[in-house]
């Protein structure tokens, strides 16, 4: 009897705990989405959970008056560039590091590993900014995308680990058939390492979409280049911020919906990619 009783208690505790976690996790997101459909009055007074009137005009205001089309466009362009850079660079380098011995390899390997443990924080943005400025790359999104892509050390290790698990006999037979090194990469490795490349792409997309500090520094004084994160957060510092909660939540919703859609479609890869990275790294 007591056994069943304590089991019941355990069961209830478990679901209470999970319920609290669920509420804690999901509430800020729900707050943002529902808040974006309320009037500022209702939002500030905390009057009711659901919107009383569904104010889709908050979005119209954000897009039309506050130029959110431009910011959304910037975010997408930035993401597409960063994702493609990350895919191309980390897959090529990872493949070379896994398959070939070349004079520079030892040095590169050591440097990549060592620098993963050096954390200078956001300081590095300043010299990089000045450097990009002297290259004339601070007036467009390309420079920012290059900086966000960066050295790719983690992704290279991910790809390298995966390529090593592909049998080398495949390369050898392709080589006998007269395939060049790049040909082996293009025709054999790239198709076979699709799972890990998907993970690299997803992480690059997430990193670029959510980047804040680098983007902010690179777009100081150039509002037309700002991605969504920077634009949304800057609403907090606007003159009448107190009267614009509904716009802030609308902006935040615009910034989180696309990545949320990507996540809903790909959450398996996200989660498996994270564990692959943790075990290898």
């Amino acid at each position, binding site marked *: 009897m007591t056994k069943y009783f304590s089991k019941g208690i355990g069961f209830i505790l478990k679901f209470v705990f999970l319920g609290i976690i669920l509420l804690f*996790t999901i509430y800020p997101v729900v707050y943002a989405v529902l808040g974006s459909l309320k009037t500022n009055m209702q939002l500030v007074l905390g009057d009711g959970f659901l919107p009383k009137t569904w104010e889709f005009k908050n979005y119209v205001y954000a897009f039309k008056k506050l130029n959110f089309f431009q910011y959304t466009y910037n975010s997408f362009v930035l993401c597409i560039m960063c994702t493609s850079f990350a895919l191309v*660079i980390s897959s090529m380098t990872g493949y070379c590091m896994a398959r070939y011995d070349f004079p520079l390899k030892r040095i590169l390997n050591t440097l990549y590993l060592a620098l993963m443990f050096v954390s200078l924080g956001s300081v590095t943005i300043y010299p990089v900014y000045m450097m990009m400025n002297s290259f004339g790359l601070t007036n467009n999104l390309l420079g920012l995308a290059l900086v966000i892509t960066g050295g790719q050390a983690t992704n290279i290790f991910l790809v390298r680990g995966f390529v090593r698990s592909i049998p080398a006999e495949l390369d050898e037979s392709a080589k006998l058939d007269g395939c060049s090194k790049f040909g082996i990469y293009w025709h054999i490795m790239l198709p076979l390492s699709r799972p890990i490349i998907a993970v690299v792409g997803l992480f690059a997309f997430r990193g670029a979409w959510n980047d804040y500090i680098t983007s902010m520094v690179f777009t100081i004084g150039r509002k037309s280049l700002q991605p969504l994160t920077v634009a949304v957060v800057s609403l907090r510092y606007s003159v009448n911020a107190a009267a614009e909660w509904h716009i802030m939540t609308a902006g935040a919703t615009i910034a989180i919906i696309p990545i949320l859609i990507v996540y809903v479609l790909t959450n398996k890869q996200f989660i498996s990619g994270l564990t692959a990275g943790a075990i290898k790294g």
Partner: protein
Amino acid sequence: MQTSMKPNMRSRIGTVGKGFKENKQIYLMILPNVIMFALFSIYPIGWVLKYMFYQYDKINDPIFIGLDNFVRIFTRDPYFWKTVTNTFYYVGGKLLITLPVAFVIAVLLNKKFFGSRLMQSIVFMPTIMSASVMALIFYLILNPYSGALNTAMMKMNLISVPINWLSYYNALDTVIIVGVWGAIGNYMVYFLAGLQSVPEDIYESAELDGIGPVRKMFCITIPMMTPVLKTVVMLVLISSFQDIQSIMVLTEGGPNGASDVMFLYVYRMFFPISATTASTSQFGYGAALSVVCASLIGAVTILYLRATRKVDDMF
């Protein structure tokens, strides 16, 4: 990482030491990465290591001042050491909350039940969202007068007067909770992977011996998880030392430095946009500060690795 150091025999496909011509394609393929790595990873480190010996701001030319910046850090900058204390409090607090909560969630969700996969996906969700944008949302929720948290708590009669969550006494704790919000999902996933790596037959034989669930947890699961636990703690440590996005948006380190962390202080030496500090950039001093911060983190990492080796010996 161990395996990366061993020469991989299978990878030697007849290209060893045949000069540049043979390796031309390889060099062309790694070239973009080498350039970017040099520009964005090596160059800034070199820059920092050079200018940490300089007095350097936006207006004047850099002047070499030797170790003066470091003398200033260790003798004349109590505010920096306050941010260091805050950082350690933040990292420690985040670790102490995130680890047990994420572990319990992982254990509960490791058993399949209706909705367990969905629950996993939801708990993981914060990690894909922008920390800065969500910090803005938290800023609204935590607002003392109009924020949803105080309104809800007053309606439920839990408090009678609104609490200022971002006041001098609460700001750092609040910032920790926001950090925990963004971190639980990550560590839950690591723990789940760790739990799934524990072989099922150990549990079966334990069950045959009549061992209860509590002892199973403490005598099998947790010891078997120590390798994963070690890695996870390491990851939390390194990443939380560098968490500045949400703090920047939520409190800007304020009020009066109550929630300022070391990397945010360093950041303001370079980009003094915030109202809380002096409004001139001090690049040289910032570079020196960042080297001190990096060394502190390095020291913590080494100490941690040593300590965990001792723990390994105990088992």
